């Protein structure tokens, strides 16, 4: 357990809290983005090993000692993917908000009841 895990979990909670309580659709998307950042932070922190360095094998990290000198590169690769997909999903969601706003001139989620039962 270290400070990065705590910050990551806290960001997740803040983001989900924002998604649950906010009425403004842009703020809901921001809540999702904050929660996403928290998840990514936690994932990178899971791959961290104390006292080790980045998984780049250059002059400072000889290839034969690499196993004992680098942190786990797999979570970093996964987070790289997650960040890009997060950006794509956020852009698409904001586009939906633009479209909805043009229809009803309101950003409040309570105005949109078409799919509510």
């Amino acid at each position, binding site marked *: *357990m270290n400070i990065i*895990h*705590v910050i990551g*979990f806290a960001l*997740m*909670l803040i983001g*989900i*809290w924002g998604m*649950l*309580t906010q009425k403004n659709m842009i703020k809901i998307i921001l809540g999702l983005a904050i929660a996403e950042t928290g998840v990514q932070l936690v994932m990178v922190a*899971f*791959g*961290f*090993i*104390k006292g080790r360095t*980045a*998984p*780049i*094998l*250059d002059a400072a990290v000889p*290839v034969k000692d*690499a*196993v*004992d000198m*680098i942190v*786990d*590169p*797999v979570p*970093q*690769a996964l987070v*790289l*993917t997650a*960040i*890009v*997909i997060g*950006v*794509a*999903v956020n*852009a*698409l969601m*904001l*586009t*939906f908000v*633009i*479209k909805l706003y043009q229809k009803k001139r309101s950003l409040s989620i309570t105005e949109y009841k078409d799919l509510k039962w």
Partner: protein
Amino acid sequence: MIKKMFSFILIIFLFLILFELLNNLTENKKLSGVAKEYAERGAAELGTANLVTSIVVTYRGLDTLGEVSVLFIAATGVAVLLRRRKDEEILIQKVKRQSSEILQTGTDLLVPIIIMFGVYIFINGHLSPGGGFQGGAVIASAVLLSFLSDINYKINHTVFGLIESLSGVFYVLIGVLGIFLAGGFLDNRILPLGEYGTILSAGAIPLIYTLIGLKVGTELASIIDNMKRDSE
């Protein structure tokens, strides 16, 4: 009010779950199985100094192809949703204010440097922290800066669309070439590995990352363009 209480209770439960998880975390002491394998074999097998790159582009290359597809579909979705018919375009004519002298001069100075930095990031993806997605995002930020400084700035959609589609096609073609010339789909050893640690090494990885960088850069730029056009 009841709704708010319900959210609060939900957050409390989530907090308890995460707290339990946090309390039972044990510190990592050594690499896990897959990571150990990559660390031992990655450099010699693929010739990449940056292990994250060798995982992203080669070992888990199919994931990256899926990631590029997700980004492409999202960009297409944004373009389709924000498409505007010809007659609507003429109706909206707002008076726009020219941006300040400082922003204009700063943009003229910085845009070439930012684009060059983006290219540097994706060309050195196999040697240093960086890669196609990061480089592409930096290039798109140069386009965003141009949009901010010049109210009449327009991107050339034909050129952007052409770059985007061609780099996507060539990325898949390089992947398919890997099946015939090397070990499998998206194998980078279709080109000679070269001298370890130089720019022209690691087989096809610099080529693949250049294509990804161009594709991501143009895609993000067109997302920005679509959103900007619609807010006018």
